[in-house]
C-alpha cells in the first residue's frame, strides 16, 4: 500500500519531468513558449493550492506575490546584474517574508473577510509599485540586452529560463506532495475542516497557517522573476493582474482542490481551453467570461474537481491519484 501511495505523489513529478525533456529534445521556440505558460500556471496553481486546498483559505489576490516577488527579482537582475537563480530566490524570499508579515495580520480573518483583504493587498501593492522610483514607477523596468550575454545571447537565455522554470515547477509539485503527506499537512487539513476544533486538538493554527501562506507565496515570487526575465520587461499592469489570481483558482477548482495532481491537471486543461478560446473568432474577447461560467458550473456540479470526482467514483484510483 505504501508504494502505491508514493506512486500517487510521483505521477505529477514524472509527467512534468518527461514533458520538460520532450520540449528540450524538440527544441522548438513556439513549443517552449506555450509550455512555459503552462508550467507557470501549474506552479502558480499548485502553490496556491497549499493555502486554498490544504488549509482552506481563499486568497483572491495571490498574484501579488507573483508581481511583487517578480518585480524584486527582476530589479536585481536588470539593475544590479545579479544572476537569474539568486535573483529569483530573492524574489521568492521577498514574497515569502511579505506573506509571513501579512499572515500575522490578515490570517486572523476568516472566510470571506480574508479573501477580501487579499484583494486589497494586491491593489495596494500595484499602487505602491506604480509610484516607487527604484522600480521604475508606472513605466516599469526592462532588461539591457547585454544582460543576456551571460547566457550566450537572447535565444539561449530563453532556453535557460525555461529550464529554471521547469525545475521550479518540479520543486513546487514536490513541496505540495511533501506538505500533503506530512504531519504538518494533516494539521493544515484539520484547520480547513474546523479551525476551532483543530486548535482544541492541539494544532497551533496561527503558526501553521502563516507557514502555509509563506510556502504558497514563495514559489510565485520565483516564477514571477523568471516570467519577467523571459519577457524582458515588467510594468505594474502586467504584474498585478487580478484576473490571473482568479484563473489560478479556476484551475484548482477544475482539477480538484486539496490534491497534488488536481491543480496540475486543471492548469493544463484550462490553458488548453484558453488557447482555443483566444484563437477562435467567436470567443476571442470572451475567454474570461467563459472561465467565469466554468467556475460556476464546477462549484455547482463537481465541487471536488476532476481528480476528486474520479477518486470518489472509482475507489481503485484513490491509491493512484493524490
Amino acid at each position, binding site marked *: 500500500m505504501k508504494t502505491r501511495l508514493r506512486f500517487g505523489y510521483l505521477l505529477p513529478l514524472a509527467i512534468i519531468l518527461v514533458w520538460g525533456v520532450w520540449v528540450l529534445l524538440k527544441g522548438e521556440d513556439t513549443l517552449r513558449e506555450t509550455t512555459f505558460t503552462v508550467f507557470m500556471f501549474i506552479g502558480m496553481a499548485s502553490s496556491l493550492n497549499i493555502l486554498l486546498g490544504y488549509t482552506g483559505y481563499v486568497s483572491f489576490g495571490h498574484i501579488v506575490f507573483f508581481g511583487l516577488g517578480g518585480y524584486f527579482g527582476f530589479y536585481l537582475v536588470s539593475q544590479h546584474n545579479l544572476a537569474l537563480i539568486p535573483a529569483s530566490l530573492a524574489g521568492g524570499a521577498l514574497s515569502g517574508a511579505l506573506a509571513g508579515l501579512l499572515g500575522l495580520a490578515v490570517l486572523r480573518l476568516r472566510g470571506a473577510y480574508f479573501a477580501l483583504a487579499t484583494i486589497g493587498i494586491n491593489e495596494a501593492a500595484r499602487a505602491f509599485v506604480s509610484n516607487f522610483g527604484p522600480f521604475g514607477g508606472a513605466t516599469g523596468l526592462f532588461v539591457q540586452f547585454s544582460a543576456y550575454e551571460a547566457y550566450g545571447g537572447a535565444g539561449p537565455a530563453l532556453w535557460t529560463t525555461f529550464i529554471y522554470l521547469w525545475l521550479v515547477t518540479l520543486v513546487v509539485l514536490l513541496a505540495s506532495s511533501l506538505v500533503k503527506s*506530512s*504531519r504538518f499537512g*494533516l*494539521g493544515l*487539513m*484539520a484547520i*480547513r*475542516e*474546523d479551525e*476551532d*476544533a*483543530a*486548535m*482544541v*486538538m*492541539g*494544532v*497551533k*493554527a496561527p503558526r501553521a497557517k502563516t507557514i502555509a501562506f509563506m510556502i504558497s507565496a514563495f514559489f510565485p515570487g520565483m516564477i514571477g522573476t523568471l516570467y519577467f526575465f523571459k519577457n524582458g520587461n515588467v510594468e505594474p499592469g502586467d504584474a498585478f493582474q487580478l484576473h490571473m489570481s482568479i484563473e489560478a483558482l479556476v484551475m484548482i477548482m477544475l482539477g480538484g482542490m*486539496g490534491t497534488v495532481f488536481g491543480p496540475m491537471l486543471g492548469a493544463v486543461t484550462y490553458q488548453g481551453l484558453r488557447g482555443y478560446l483566444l484563437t477562435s473568432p467567436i470567443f476571442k474577447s470572451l475567454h474570461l467570461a467563459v472561465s467565469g461560467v466554468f467556475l460556476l458550473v464546477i462549484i455547482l456540479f463537481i465541487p471536488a474537481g476532476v481528480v476528486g470526482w474520479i477518486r470518489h467514483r472509482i475507489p481503485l484510483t484513490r491509491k493512484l491519484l493524490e
Partner: protein
Amino acid sequence: MMLLQVQEVTKRFGGLQALSDVTFELPEGQILGLIGPNGAGKTTLFNVLNGVFAPNKGRVIFRGEDITGLPPYDVARRGIARAYQVVRPLNDLTVRENVMVGGCFGRECLSLGQAASGAEEVLAVVGLLDRADQLASSLNVAQKKRLELARALGSRPYLLLLDEVLAGLNPSEIAAMLETIQKIRAGGITILMIEHVMQAVMNVSDRVIVLDYGQVIAEGLPEEVVNNPLVIEAYLGDPKLTQRLIEG
C-alpha cells in the same frame, strides 16, 4: 494527587455573569459529573478549562502547573482533550485521520506512523475500527459521537472533558457508550463529564458537582447531590411547591 484544581474562576460576558467563583478539585483517576440546568455555565466552564476563553478572574491549575489563559493548542499539548457536545468531525478526512490529528498534535506529539497505529487501538476501544477508512462525514450520529470520543482519546490525554456525549443517543447506544467510558477510566484517564442523562451520571460518576447560574451549589457523592434541596430547586423550582403539585 490533584490532577486539576479550579480556583475562584469567574467569567463575564458583558453584563452576564457566566461563572462566578467556581472552585473545585479533581483527583487523578476519578470521574466527576458536572450537572446543572440549561444556561448554568457548564460549557463555559469547559471553554475556560481548555483555553477557548480566558477567565476574568481565578486560576486553573493542571498537574501542578498554572494553565490559566493559555491558548487551546497549548492546553491540548499538556494533556487535556475534549469531546464536543455538538459533534465536529473533520468531514473530508477519514475516521483514522481524524483520530491521528489528536495523536499528532496532542500531548505526545506523535509522528504520523505512531499516530496511525495509536489510532487503530483507540478506534478498537470505541468500536469504529471497521470504519477507519471511511470519510468522517459518512458516519451516523451515534458513530460521530464515538469518533468525537476517539479523537479526544487519540491524544492520550491525562484529562478528558466530555460534553454531553450521551445526548441524542438511544437507550442501547447510551448503555454501550457508558461501557466505553468505564473502559476509558479503567485505562487510567481522569474524566470530567457534563451530562443531562441523570441516570447515567449517577451510575458512572464518583462525585458530582452542580452548577446553577454560574455558581457551584452542591458537591458530593451522586446520591447526596440528588437529594439536596438546593439542587431540586434549581431543576424543578421550590421543592415544597413541587411536592404539593405532585400530591395534587
